[in-house]
């Protein structure tokens, strides 16, 4: 494939952590939890102009069992919260969560009794994206932050 010729004969050493994290961080498949207008920007993020495939995240998986990053794009009402939590629980570990936009992060302009004031009330959120809705660039930035986070994690579990 070309890599072999560049490396030549021989071998390289690394840590398992680095290798696994390198693989994981460049294949963070999103679970698109599109709930409102942010989902339109999320589609642009996956589309050819902003092209999430540059970061290995072009594979939008509508099955939670094949995905790594849940992108909560839009406002979450109390009824939907249970469905989101259920999908989140179905995603295999390790998994990460992006709260996209003002509504998913804080409730945003939906300051009322029916809307959960931030999806971090019931989900462990790794990255928050500001904006209403955020530009696709901002979501790419959040994805890069998630990649940074993955690269600094211990991927091999230590016996304690």
């Amino acid at each position, binding site marked *: 494939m070309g890599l072999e010729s560049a490396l030549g004969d021989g071998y390289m050493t690394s840590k398992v952590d680095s290798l696994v994290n390198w693989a994981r961080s460049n294949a963070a498949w999103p679970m698109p939890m599109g709930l409102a207008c942010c989902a339109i920007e999320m589609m642009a993020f996956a589309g050819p102009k902003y092209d999430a495939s540059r970061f290995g995240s072009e594979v939008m998986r509508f099955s939670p069992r094949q995905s790594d990053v849940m992108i909560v794009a839009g406002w979450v009402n*109390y*009824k939907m919260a249970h469905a989101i*939590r259920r999908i989140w629980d179905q995603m295999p570990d390790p998994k990460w969560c992006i709260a996209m936009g003002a509504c998913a992060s804080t409730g945003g302009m939906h*300051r009322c*009794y029916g809307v959960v*004031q931030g999806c971090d009330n019931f989900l462990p959120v790794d990255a928050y994206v500001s904006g209403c809705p955020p530009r696709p660039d901002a979501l790419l930035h959040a994805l890069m932050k998630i990649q940074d986070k993955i690269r600094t994690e211990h991927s091999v579990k230590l016996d304690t």
Partner: protein
Amino acid sequence: MALQLNESLQNVVDGLSESFTDELIDVYQSSGDTFVRIIADANVEICRYLKEEHHFIYLVDVFGTDRFTSQDRFEVIYNLVSLRDQQRLFVKVWLPEENPEIESVTDVWASANWYERQTYDMFGIQFTNHPDFRRIYMPEDFEYFPMRKEFPLLGIPGSIPLPSSTPDTK
């Protein structure tokens, strides 16, 4: 202020004041619309009369208002349209704060079904003789009525359950 009614609405108001002298409380106009206030017990009778005699076959909406007054706190408003005469008429009913209850108009217009459920869900106004009387938006075990003035904007904490934030594993 004198009412400025066109011919068909004048017919409606004349007909109402002749047939329902005791039940008709007030007729007024505001922002180009005509409002008729009636007593609560006569709502089905008057609605049926308006539908059958004046061709208000289209019930656009039924909704409530919390007037936040010490007397007759709640209001139920029927938004009627006559497609034939191209007229709109609002029929209003005032209800007391304690046990606001009114008869359903689902027998007159079937479309009132969900509107009345919504009005009950938001204001707690009871509709009798309703075929399927339960909440429409909020959870069935929700104990409050969110559009009442005393209900806080952000709701009552803990009144609607959120999913557990810890995973369901052993």
